[in-house]
């Protein structure tokens, strides 16, 4: 039986974030992109004590805590999508999702998702090389979360 998950709690900041964690490629790397966004709760309020992790073999692994405004910010490499995990106080296990930078309607996950909710998996273009991806933990615009 796998070991059960427990919340990351509110006190991880001196242990888990590390220098360079939000940069999976050095800033200024040709082709690097910025992925940023907010983590929001069911009342639409920012979650200031979340930890966001991203992963793609072509982009690397990144880790970034949210600030007082619930905002995280990564510098990473372009990939069709990034796997995203969010940990927080009040989350007894992480939520898993994907941030699609280049959504392909034939993608097996996008095809499987209710079309009305599909855009919660798509990072919005916010500028040249800049994408915005908000994570709504709950509520009308709840992000599509994945079962691993």
């Amino acid at each position, binding site marked *: *039986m*796998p*070991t*059960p*998950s*427990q*919340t*990351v*709690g*509110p*006190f*991880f*900041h*001196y*242990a*888990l974030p590390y220098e360079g964690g939000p940069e999976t490629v050095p800033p200024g790397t040709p082709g690097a992109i910025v992925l940023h966004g907010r983590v929001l*709760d*069911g*009342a639409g*309020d920012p*979650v200031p*004590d979340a930890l966001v*992790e991203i*992963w*793609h*073999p072509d982009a*690397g*692994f990144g880790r970034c805590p949210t600030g007082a405004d619930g905002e995280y910010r990564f510098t990473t490499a372009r990939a069709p*999508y990034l*796997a995203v*995990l969010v*940990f*927080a*106080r*009040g*989350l*007894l*296990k*992480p*939520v*898993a999702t994907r941030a699609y930078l280049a959504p392909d309607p034939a993608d*097996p*996950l996008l095809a*499987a*998702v209710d079309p009305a*909710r599909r855009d919660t998996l798509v990072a919005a273009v916010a500028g040249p090389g800049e994408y915005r991806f908000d994570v709504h*933990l*709950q509520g009308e615009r*709840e*992000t*599509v*979360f*994945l*079962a*691993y």
Partner: protein
Amino acid sequence: MTHPPYLHPDYRGTTLRAPARDLVPVPYDPETVELTGPVYGSTDVDPAESDLTRGHAGEPLGERIIVTGQVLDRAGRPVPDALVEIWQANSAGRYVHSGDRHPAPLDPNFTGAGRCLTDAAGRYRFVTIKPGAYPWRNHANAWRPAHIHFSLFGRAFTQRLVTQMYFPGDPLFAFDPIFQSIPDVKAREQLIAGFDLATTEPEWALGYVWDIVLDAVPFEEQ
């Protein structure tokens, strides 16, 4: 069901943060990105990071302990080179964190964060101080049982695990909604380390053993 549900109202923090909609299963194929994960090696971690009692001017206060165990996959195979990160309160139940308002003393000789990589047999080992219980404001007279936070990376992103290790016989288990959020009693008990005399070092430190089993990886032979 091993893992706790997202919504566990006794733990108030879950009410506005628990997703309410059904999760969507990942349509796995052998190329699925979540079946891979970051790979760590010995150059990423300094062995000194596994001793939380060092790196300060003096010795921390409290009961010195050794916490060790094996990281295993669902088939019982050891997971080598797994990154294990831990953090905890000091012996008085206080975290080195600006958000911790518990009026218990900080220890200038204890930070409470460590890391290591598992060896070829999937083993990890930390030297630290037994953390104290501490109050929180979830409900009237709420106290967390003593625990060490653990974060683990296996072979795949699907195996990523953040959890808490508890100590045997803690009288606070029955009152802790975070521990009690795990519905299955046997699963819950998997979070409790065992005292181990063979790990205990004479005249120096008490030993606790805690094995960790990671979730299965689709397409891996079970």
